[in-house]
């Protein structure tokens, strides 16, 4: 069996994390042109959503719409036809806490909106409503390995279905008491538009292979802390190479006994 390398062309990038409101800022920080100043993540208003859904939109909905649209705009891609792969450790942590708290009380009648927002694929559902895209939408959970699992399936779709695919890997916080058990400090995520063919907008070609090497780390201690405590930000060593315009390989955290080597060839 001849393996087809898991490979695609990166066409657009979206990014949002504590102190990093968008990809241009993140790019400047990763290039060393701007200092990293830690600050709570800032989430834009999800203006693409109809009013009813906008009112119900949680932090993860705002996050995924912000980075997904940033990447799609960067790639000049039509969001109404893009296939999507969402990957996250959890859904809306605040909503989950409220449900668990109510189910432990004498009044277990949880609200219907809370319940339908509790599904792991809530962000993908809102994305579909906002963009009108009826294309396939995947929703993955891999605890700390969300970026790796997400890119593996997104590349599978790009290659097998020959479809431009938007990967959105993201994570968010739980309030206490769950926060102590799962200490993700804030929302953060990355979005990549991945194309099966090279276009005028292609930024780089990425090829992903299994590896047992240790993951690359970031020199900046504060950024390295975010790479560790917001699982989706395990992508940062890859983004650093992209930001600096360097071709070559990085190792990105995936699972025990299986890391991912990501080879980048800039266009």
């Amino acid at each position, binding site marked *: 069996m001849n*393996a087809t390398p898991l490979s695609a062309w990166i066409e657009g990038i979206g990014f949002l994390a504590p102190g990093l409101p968008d990809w241009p800022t993140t790019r400047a920080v990763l290039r060393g042109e701007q200092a990293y100043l830690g600050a709570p993540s800032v989430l834009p208003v999800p203006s693409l959503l109809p009013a009813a859904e906008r009112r119900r939109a949680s932090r993860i909905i705002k996050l995924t719409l912000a980075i997904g649209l940033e990447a799609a705009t960067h790639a000049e891609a039509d969001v109404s036809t893009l296939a999507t792969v969402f990957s996250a450790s959890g859904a809306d942590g605040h909503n989950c806490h409220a449900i668990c708290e109510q189910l432990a009380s004498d009044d277990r009648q949880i609200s*219907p909106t809370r319940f339908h927002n509790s599904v792991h*694929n809530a962000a*993908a*559902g809102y994305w*579909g409503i906002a963009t009108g895209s009826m294309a396939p939408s995947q929703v993955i*959970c891999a*605890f700390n*390995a969300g970026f790796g699992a997400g890119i*593996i399936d997104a590349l599978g779709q790009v290659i097998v279905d020959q479809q431009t695919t938007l990967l959105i890997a993201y994570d968010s916080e739980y309030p206490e008491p769950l926060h102590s058990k799962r200490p993700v400090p804030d929302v953060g995520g990355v979005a990549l538009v991945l194309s099966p063919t090279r276009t005028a907008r292609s930024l780089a070609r990425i090829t992903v292979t299994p590896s047992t090497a240790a993951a690359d780390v970031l020199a900046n201690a504060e950024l390295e802390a975010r790479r560790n405590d917001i699982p989706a930000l395990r992508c940062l060593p890859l983004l650093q190479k992209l930001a600096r315009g360097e071709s070559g390989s990085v190792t990105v955290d995936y699972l025990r006994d299986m890391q991912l080597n990501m080879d980048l060839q800039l266009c």
Partner: protein
Amino acid sequence: MTPLHLSSYTATSSLGRGLAANLEALREGRSGLVPCAFETVQLDTWIGEVAAVDGQKLPKTLARFDCRNNRLAQMTLETDGFADNVRAAILRYGKTRVGVFLGTSTSGILQTELAYRRRDPVSGALPEDFIYGTTHNSFSLAEFARDYFGLEGPAMAISTACSSSAKVFAAAARQIACGSIDAALVGGVDSLCLTTLYGFASLQLTSPTPCRPYDPARNGISIGEGGAFALLERAPARPEAGSILLLGTGESSDAYHMSSPHPEGLGARMAMEAALRSAGLNATDIDYLNLHGTATPANDAAEGKAVVALFGDRVPGSSTKGATGHTLGAAGAIEAIICALALTNDLLPGSPHTASLDPAIPIQYLLDSRSGKVRRALTNSFGFGGSNCSLVFGVAE
């Protein structure tokens, strides 16, 4: 797509543990639904509960995974010789070459629901013995299975509500097609918990009677639990007679509403069309439709429209949720295995509790189980958030 071989498979539901028990119940038109007496739940509804789940003891080295969902996962894995067949496949291919793709909607959230009753009265902290990552988190199921077999290849949980464990077949097939793995452990497990029981009740989607898919008087779902697994491998050039093959997969999104299906069943139709296209088949090639058929008025009406548009009343179909209950994130995999049972036993499963046919949905709906040649079957799974997946299975002759 290139057909893939389900070299081993198993299912456990409220109908029983393993293939034989489920087959016999489906043949006889039995239902596993009973009035809800789960945990401390007080709801006027019926459920499909699997017997003796909490009697399962996880291996000591995997104690951190202990929760109802993983107990049910282990119980399902250790049935029909399935776990031994997975171990044999790992010997054949190597532990880095077998991927894990499992679906669940709520994983071990029951563990968190129970922990919230034991919070520290002063600090509000959760109990020391509660572990979030290996129980509640949706990845817990996939990581448990990966560690259970000592695998070192790719793994992911897919959580798209009630289409989760149908979509795992598509994701695994893509990786096998790329050659990044040689075999995949696919399937799904969902177990009863308060979030889904009270949640579906809050949406007024649970029925006070056993659910009646496609009945004109249908008035909601009966929640069930269960697990199903399959081992996917490349098919040999001449598969042995009776081998089950995954022939096609199709996925789509409704882009309509978080908890209501597209009223015309447009997303459902797109998923079925994509699955047929992927299999290189026409609607006339399908002999049995395993419908999503949750028994909510809206689901069955929307799915029915999509089925009428594609298949008319030519293809016999049924929802088996009156038998198993709606097993949510496990439904896709359980119903894939029900298709395998239909294909290998010339069985057209009926629809327990459905008393009459809805005149507004002119499809060939099977009230009672009967014998009939099934060469190819299509199964539908649709989830909240408008996530749709259809799969086509065939049997080698």
